[in-house]
């Protein structure tokens, strides 16, 4: 095995082009488990830990975008991006333990592309783009096209993730996860929702309930239409219970879960419905509350 230690991003991208089978290592919280247990013996480990810009984020409000370096650890996302990327900040807080959150980040979560990765529902709901870079150039992969199979993503062998771009939140976002305890839990299933009032859209993300992280598109479209029809984006009136119920049913129906050691398929479908209803309730209350503070101010 060879340990490659690029000092700059250009060197890292060049190293990946030269050794396409090299395994990037950022926080190491997935890679080292595989190495410790002999599940992986890469010829080259490509350490990304010395590239400062991967651990930086940019919330320049002028661009309306949060550009999150691939290696920014979850603990810093929780702390600093609560306002700009609330869904991802909430999801980050549910990952593992402080020790893991101090090392692991979104680039690694995307690299592993596990259906149970907690960043995915938030990235799907937030409408993220993945900045993939190779010596050939940079492309922005819409998050909807990123997950291509169980633990498979759309990166080419010579590509590295430089950053993730998220629209700065303009409305409430929520994340919810089912597990046996609060810390150190792989999601039985998870759900993210984001209201995008400026474009009158709702986006969602479902984790651990299909071969890849997915959106509940029918539920999104139904809710956006219901809000539009009743003029609720403007009036910010209470949400009719029938709308919340139908939304939950559609979220539950979007899932394609399996039975496994963490839970049965039918439990997952049920739990997703419950999480969908709750998170919608939380986000809608926050949306209504925001109006009140604004008009009071």
């Amino acid at each position, binding site marked *: *095995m*060879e*340990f490659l*230690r690029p000092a700059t991003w250009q060197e890292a991208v060049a190293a990946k082009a030269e050794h396409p089978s090299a395994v990037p*290592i950022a*926080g*190491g*919280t997935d*890679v*080292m*488990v595989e*190495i*410790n*247990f002999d599940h992986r*013996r890469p010829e080259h*480990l490509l*350490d990304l*830990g010395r590239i400062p810009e991967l651990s930086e984020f940019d919330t320049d409000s002028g661009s309306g975008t949060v550009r999150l370096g691939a290696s920014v650890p979850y603990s810093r996302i929780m702390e600093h991006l609560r306002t700009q990327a609330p869904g991802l900040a909430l999801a980050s807080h549910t990952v*593992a*333990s*402080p*020790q*893991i959150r*101090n*090392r692991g980040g979104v680039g690694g979560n995307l690299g592993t592309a596990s259906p149970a990765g907690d960043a995915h529902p938030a990235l799907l709901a937030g409408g993220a783009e993945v900045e993939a870079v190779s010596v050939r150039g940079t492309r922005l992969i819409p998050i909807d096209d990123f997950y291509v199979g169980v633990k498979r993503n759309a990166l080419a062998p010579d590509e590295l993730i430089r950053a993730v771009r998220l629209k700065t939140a303009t409305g409430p976002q929520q994340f919810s996860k089912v597990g046996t305890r*609060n*810390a*150190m839990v792989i999601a039985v299933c998870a759900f993210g929702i984001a209201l995008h009032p400026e474009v009158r859209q709702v986006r969602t993300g479902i984790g651990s309930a299909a071969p890849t992280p997915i959106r509940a598109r029918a539920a999104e479209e139904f809710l956006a239409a219901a809000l539009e029809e009743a003029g609720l984006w403007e009036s910010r009136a209470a949400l009719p219970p029938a709308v919340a119920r139908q939304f939950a049913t559609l979220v539950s129906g979007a899932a394609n879960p399996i039975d496994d050691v963490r839970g049965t398929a039918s439990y997952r479908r049920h739990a997703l419905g419950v999480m969908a209803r709750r998170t919608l309730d939380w986000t809608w209350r926050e949306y209504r509350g925001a109006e009140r503070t604004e008009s009071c101010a």
Partner: protein
Amino acid sequence: MRVTFTVNGRQASADDVWEGESLLYVLRERLGLPGSKNACEQGECGSCTVRLDGVPVCSCLVAAGQAQGREVTTVEGLAGPEGELSTVQQAFVDAGAVQCGFCTPGLLVAADELLERNPEPSDGDIREALSGNLCRCTGYEKILDAVRLAAARTEGAV
């Protein structure tokens, strides 16, 4: 490969380190610092917790090469030069927070960092800070007592 970093304030080097080796292995097997414990090697138990550039991490999940040039603090770095126990260590002894002791080094490092960051933690803060450290003996109550005691003593000393 050769790996050089600062551990508990001293420069240390290890030779013939395998590229896939963990920082935990280097500390225990190559640098004679067996305080950090190896239980799960998969980030679940926290018994290998050390500070890397001040931040608590599972040393079993840090590749040795990633520690090159960095600063590592292990449980061996907590006591004073004459072996005087630190406030957190003394509190663990006094509160009876140690049974078999296997989890203790990791908990000490995590608790020490918590109190440095947050000298008056709530119970919720303590639980969260220690949520990555498993103990199979104590039932955690005495560990919580120890951290509260250390916090009270730290406050008293200021």
